[in-house]
């Protein structure tokens, strides 16, 4: 991906408690570290009570408004499938939607305890998928994850992030007309 001159728009949406705010902090932190002008906007308050939560992230050489305009999201990251329809209108017709279906490996384990663990890392897993499409070095991502989470969560989240990133890189490579080296 070339350094974009125009603004790239990302929307992360899901339910209260799914780590939307943390996920958008990791993403905006990584973009900031990578040297972009980045603006992040979110609405929280009543949404803490299990309602819909949504965060807008925009980056480029210069960003004006912190809010993604209607139907302009280049990437729409959804952490819970019931939130697809309420947010679909935000996606650009040529944009890419990323949903829990993109990280099936996260939910393969039948153990309910690890399923609960997996659900808590859905934000980072989906960022891994997203990361394969953004011009940020891998180490910058990992730094951003570490900066946003407490130390005992670092290993687990970095592993999930990289796993999702690798799979997406491979799929993306297969689908790309340019192919990967």
């Amino acid at each position, binding site marked *: 991906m070339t350094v974009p001159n125009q603004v790239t728009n990302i929307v992360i949406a899901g*339910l*209260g408690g799914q780590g939307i705010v943390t996920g958008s*902090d990791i993403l*905006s*932190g990584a973009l*900031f570290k990578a040297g972009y*002008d*980045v*603006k*992040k*906007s*979110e*609405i*929280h*308050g*009543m*949404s*803490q*009570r*299990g*309602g*819909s939560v*949504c965060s807008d992230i925009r980056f480029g050489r210069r*960003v*004006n*408004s*912190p*809010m993604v*305009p*209607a*139907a302009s999201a280049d990437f729409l990251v959804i952490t819970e499938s*019931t*939130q697809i*329809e*309420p*947010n*679909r*209108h935000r996606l650009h017709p040529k944009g890419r939607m990323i949903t829990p279906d993109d990280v099936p490996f996260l939910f393969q384990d039948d153990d309910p305890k690890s399923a609960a663990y997996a659900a808590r890392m859905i934000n980072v897993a989906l960022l891994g998928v997203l990361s394969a499409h953004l011009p940020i070095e891998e180490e910058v991502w990992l730094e951003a994850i570490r900066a946003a989470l407490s130390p005992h969560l670092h290993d687990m989240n970095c592993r999930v992030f990289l796993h999702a990133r690798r799979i997406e890189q491979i799929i993306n490579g297969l689908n790309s007309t340019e192919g990967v080296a």
Partner: protein
Amino acid sequence: MPDQLLTGNEAVAQAALDGAVALGTGYPGTPSTEILERFGALGGRAQWAPNEKVALEVGLGVAYAHARALVTMKHVGLNVAADPLFSATYTGVTEGLVIAVADDPGMHSSQNEQDTRRYAEAAGAPMLEPGDSQEAYDYTLAALDVSRRYQLPVILRLTTRVCHSKTRVRTRDQLMPAPAPHYERDIPSRVMIPGYARPAHVRLRERLKALANSDQPGQFLVEEGESSELGIIANGIAAVHAREAAPEARILKPGLTYPLPIEAMRKFAAQVKRCVVVEEGDPVLYTALRAAGIDVEGKAEPFRFGELTVDRVAKILTNDHSPDPEPAAPPKPPRLCHDCPHRQVFQILSKHECIVAGDIGCYTLGVMPPFEAMDTCACMGAGITIGLGLRHVLAKDQARRVVSVIGDSTFVHTGLPGIAEMAYNPPPTGHVVIIVDNDTTAMTGKQEHPGTGRQLNHLPAANKLNYEAIALALGVTNVHVVDPTDGSGEFERLLQDRLAAEELSIIVARKPCPLALKGLAKLNQASPSDGSEQK
């Protein structure tokens, strides 16, 4: 310090620290809450007040004593603090007093949309309006400076998108020197009896005039673009939306919006063929400009409601009044947590078909299905007093079903005078007040208050309010404490008994918020030796 990516709220807190603010105080309210939390985390002296009026008065005392104060609240909180505000501009201050007020256009978590710019004009308080985090930082420091120079409290008006958006911030390397607090007696300036207040009003107008005529308003003016066709005058976050919606336009953004740099705006408008005012909320700038005889266009009425966006600004500029696009499916509404102790209370109230005078907090969600057990909710503290009004006039059979529900933080905030009123003017059928006490200010993110007995940083406070003792002291003798979740049916029996009794009763339904408990447990785990034992 390298640049940081901060929310507007975090930037205000950083500026308060760099501006040597001696005390930060306020009452939590979305979207303003994180300012004080961050200020405290950065090492500033930060504390929660029982309500906004108290916070402003404490801040005013700090600023009378040659020290700097930051007072934070949301727009509806300023209504509570309006009484001291209108006198604070008369008395003035000796150092800096900055009142950070966060408006919530679009009502993401508020009971109304109100435009705090009206208060600046009404009370005669200078107002600065940042549009991003950098400006939130710069303007907080500037507000401290303007406050000291003109000896007036200054309102820093934020909006939801400024508070909760993260943008790049460059902080100052040089910190403001901290003043040495001391007291100088100045009775005519500080005691607002009519004889002293009359000259104080004249003095206030003189100070505002001096500020308006100084170089200050011009210092906060940002002008961009060369167009001679389209000019846009926009404040705060509206200016960045406008920049994006009309990249070719010439934009004038006043940072000081009271008093307005009206002559500079007149000059700007004369340089373009068409000049449009783009502002969120009420047409405040538009009205001021038109009153000054400046030929500008405003926005159509539909754009008074809700937040502005780039799309909506583009519509204002093209006079497009078509309705905004709606999502295919509505977002999921908020509701009470599955393990919330308030659930049982609302189930019982619903079952007994009570007429519930509610209040502001998490428990307002008792209005949602499946409970639908809330009939009124106007403002903080109104649950008790509106319940009394209903009891006074309803026929007996209906009056006996009226119950007031109020949370613990709200009870301390403005519920106490309601209990005084209840004891003083009891309705013929008595009344029942339920304090749903979950030991936190859950709605805004689990903040402390005088009833939790913990300070802003969650460490033990000097005292903890005892609601039962307060009720008894105010003259209400029927006070009962019950855990509504214990499964014994005690709460339901008590409610029925008290409704039938035709007396004044207070039921404290006490059970801590599970979310807050989890947070406190984590805190204890993270720093087991913290607090008094720290070396």
